[in-house]
């Protein structure tokens, strides 16, 4: 693993499988009565959130606390940032307080990359979502969920997603989740198809390692997993599509469409869902839908990433039981 996690594209196949395997180890911790490891005791991690995202922040925070790290939450609202402080000064101020890792969520694409490469700070940088660029831990938790469901919890260990057909539906243009997933799923050997109205696919997509389709119905029978992306209502006003109803009719997943999927196929969603828009309640609440699992898996994946970036190379759980963290 590298020192930072900025983009899903930075992970090799072996790196990614290693993260998934480590996350399985971490997941076992969650099944214990005491869900805590001493692995990162004495290390300080700041969750530097320039965008509101309660669920991602809480997921990272839970992961950090389960690894016994000291956690600082920094949200840009009401902070020095709202008084005009630059990203550089904010980061340097936090590092001066002895921070070992920065988990950053930022509205500007590339902000975590700048933080990691500009020489402003020395701490490890973990991208928790930047603009419309990347959200690598989301892609990892999605891949983790797919491997568990489509390959198997135990049989999946050490394996990738070779040959699995994954369909990602919705606002690809504005989605860091789609970009991260395309990169990671390709690395893991899956075949990815993006489905969206042409207005919500970026110019330049032709170089991505995936297929693009405008027709959801013909894609569903050939899918092992269908990931629905959130579609923001305000896109309608910018003429990306005519009305919510038309979007739902053409690209929403309802019970009839779900019935066209193979029996083993799962429905995923990074959340938050807009019920009635891209997904109906019947689909969201069905047992084929993995939304809640994805949230649980997110904590395991983030524990694995933090452990691998900060904790060293020895096996996480065994190491944590027997020795003090250096």
């Amino acid at each position, binding site marked *: 693993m590298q020192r930072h996690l900025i983009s899903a594209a930075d992970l090799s196949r072996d790196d990614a499988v290693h993260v998934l395997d480590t996350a399985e180890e971490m997941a076992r911790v969650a099944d214990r009565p005491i869900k805590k490891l001493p692995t990162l005791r004495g290390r300080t991690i700041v969750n530097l959130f320039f965008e509101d995202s309660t669920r991602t922040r809480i997921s990272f925070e839970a992961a950090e606390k389960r690894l016994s790290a000291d956690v600082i939450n920094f949200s840009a609202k009401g902070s020095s940032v709202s008084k005009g402080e630059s990203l550089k000064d904010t980061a340097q101020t936090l590092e001066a307080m002895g921070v070992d890792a920065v988990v950053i969520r930022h509205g500007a694409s590339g902000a975590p990359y700048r933080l990691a490469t500009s020489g402003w700070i020395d701490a490890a940088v973990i991208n928790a979502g930047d603009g419309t660029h990347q959200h690598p831990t989301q892609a990892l938790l999605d891949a983790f969920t797919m491997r568990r469901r489509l390959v198997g919890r135990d049989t999946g260990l050490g394996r990738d997603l070779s040959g699995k057909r994954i369909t990602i539906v919705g606002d690809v243009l504005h989605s860091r989740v789609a970009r991260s997933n395309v990169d990671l799923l390709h690395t893991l050997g899956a075949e990815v198809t993006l489905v969206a109205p042409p207005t919500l696919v970026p110019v*330049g997509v*032709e170089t991505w390692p995936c297929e693009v389709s405008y027709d959801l119905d013909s894609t569903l029978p050939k899918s092992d997993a269908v990931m629905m992306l959130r579609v923001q209502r305000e896109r309608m006003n910018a003429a990306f599509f005519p009305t919510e109803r038309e979007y739902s009719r053409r690209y929403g997943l309802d019970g009839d469409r779900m019935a066209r999927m193979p029996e083993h196929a799962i429905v995923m969603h990074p959340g938050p869902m807009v019920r009635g828009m891209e997904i109906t309640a019947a689909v969201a609440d069905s047992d084929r839908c993995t939304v809640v699992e994805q949230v649980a898996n997110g904590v395991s994946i983030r524990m694995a990433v933090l452990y691998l970036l900060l904790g060293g190379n020895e096996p996480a759980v065994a190491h944590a039981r027997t020795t003090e963290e250096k």
Partner: protein
Amino acid sequence: MSKILIRGARVLGGEPQDVLIDGEVVEAVGSGLSAEGAEVVEADGKVLLPGLVDLHTHLREPGREDSETVLTGTRAAASGGFTAVFAMANTFPVADTAGVVEQVWRLGREHGYCDVQPIGAVTVGLEGRKLAELGAMHESAAGVTVFSDDGKCVDDAVMMRRALEYVKAFGGVVAQHAQEPRLTEGAQMNEGVVSAELGLGGWPAVAEESIIARDVLLAEHVGSRVHICHLSTAGSVEIVRWAKSRGIDVTAEVTPHHLLLTDELVRSYDPVYKVNPPLRTERDVHALREALADGTIDIVATDHAPHPHEDKDCEWAAAAMGMVGLETALSVVQETMVETGLLDWAGVADRMSSTPARIGRAGGHGRPVSAGEPANLTLVDTAYRGSVDPAGFASRSRNTPYAGRELPGRVTHTWLRGKATLVDGKLT
């Protein structure tokens, strides 16, 4: 003023000759000229060009003296071999009145490093709603002939038409920043393969090309001349080529950075590469070079855009757009056009001196290097190669995309009407 003999200079890259300056004019050009009573500059085979003319410079004064002033900007210009620069109107206050353009013009005269020809705003406050007093600016001491809302596009077709028509009365020209505003809302970089990957808002080529197409048709319809600022795409080249073949009176400029750099550099998310119009693709770069060589694009203009360090030392989206360029322009042109065989030095003199002077009606600039002409001259050591060190810039700002990059050529001497502004690479 005393005499200066420049000995053994390759005028426009030709055979070595001597050039004798007497006072403000070139007295003689020939072989074995007498050095009597003259200070001698041994040119030693360096190339002598007419002083360079930049039709597109941001001097930032008044209003943003933290990034550049008329003094520091004209010193940077002299350093880069320029003897005249056209100062863009997007200052604070905007150069939309006779008062502001006269102030900028006068500051240039007082400092004496380089002639400063202010460009007047087309519309009041660059807001696109109301024509500025173009005639008053033309009749002022500054004698404005070039008008531009640069930084913003005159996107209203009627406003553009009226401006094109109106300036015909005094031989003016409108220089258009071609950028369709709706197509570029939130634009951060060239729209294409790289923007798709980086998740940065796209600035599509069509936003430039559609405005250029409209404006050449407007210029044809009302019989006016129009100038296109910083043309950046292969498609724009095709449109200008078509317009010229129809006899439309259009001229166009390209910046040095669009001749050399591509949007691949944006992968670093380093805002030093953030500029408007954005860096385009390899294909565009080649089309621009070809077009500059065949004359479809008339001139090189720097779009020298100084910004303070803090406006670039940040995340991409928060950063200012623009690059400094006066002190590296000639080197980039040597690298991209001369060393590739696309232009000879006479061609460089045409694209960087005589044609910009003609478009902007800068009297006394861009003249031939011959007896009786004003002694606005630039001596270039074309054999030099070195890496760009921003710490050595005369500009107040350091936002260059070339830091550490090796480039050929170095201006060693600049003369403004016979007065040396740069000697052995040092400002006087």
